[in-house]
């Protein structure tokens, strides 16, 4: 069944602040096998003009995806999470995420489409720092595959 179009434009309350830890950044960089010094060495990061160690570009997804869970698990929207696959992912960065950031995410439903029985939901996650400045915007496309005919 097609999802309710009236949910388009709905914005969910901001998430509690997530504090970005330098050891969490190190752990993530190691997990993706990336030895870039700006992820682990504050001096190296400062030499590139950053205030502290920065996170790899895709690090922020673990924060925005958790926030998108508000939408995915909204019982009123009724998305069948067991059929959801990640279709597209985009990020627009104002600046890199860095150690010490306290980040909140505000999720908005950008669009809902129905295509060949698949429900396609675009969720925008605006990530702000403690000062209220926008750091990065994440655009996540989720596809709930059509249920098999009974």
């Amino acid at each position, binding site marked *: 069944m097609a999802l309710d179009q009236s949910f388009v434009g709905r914005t969910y309350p901001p998430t509690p602040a997530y504090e970005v830890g330098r050891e969490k950044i190190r*752990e993530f960089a190691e997990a*993706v*096998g990336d030895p870039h010094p700006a992820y682990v060495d504050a001096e190296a990061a400062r030499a590139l003009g*950053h205030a502290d160690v920065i996170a*790899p570009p895709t690090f922020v997804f*673990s924060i925005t995806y958790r926030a998108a869970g508000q939408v995915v698990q909204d019982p009123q929207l009724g998305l069948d999470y067991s059929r959801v696959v990640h279709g597209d*992912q985009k990020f627009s*960065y104002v600046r890199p995420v860095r150690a010490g950031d306290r980040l909140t995410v505000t999720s908005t439903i950008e669009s809902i489409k129905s295509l060949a029985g698949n429900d396609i939901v675009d969720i925008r996650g605006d990530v702000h720092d403690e000062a209220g400045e926008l750091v990065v915007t994440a655009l996540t496309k989720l596809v709930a595959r059509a249920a098999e005919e009974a």
Partner: protein
Amino acid sequence: MTAKVSYGSVEVGTELPAQSFPVTRATLVQYAGASGDFNPIHWNEKFAREVGLPDVIAHGMFTMAEAVRVVTDWAGDPGAVVDYGVRFTKPVVVPNDDKGALIEVSGKVAAKLDDNLVRVDLVAMCDGKKVLGMSRAVVRLA
């Protein structure tokens, strides 16, 4: 932000050094822990097959993280990336052996934009198949 490549030194068609990234079951378990994405399709073969997959598959976000390294290693400053987007077109299947899978990434400058920005188009292949579509990054050069 201080990229190590100058805007003036590149032109449309400039190729970035290609790289290959190995991925094994151990890599996926480590990534699951670091990212907090514990979906069993990324580590449990029985579960993956039950939902119709050929085997355990890599996290799409892992593949996305590897692909952009061709850009960040080239630019020199990972903070120089301004935009980055991909479409997850084919799964990276990771067999339970010592070899695992290999993600092969190449990229080239597709457009020169204003403000020292260039658009890099990436191609990520695994086992002869394109695993990311519309994989593009915009990066600010020196």
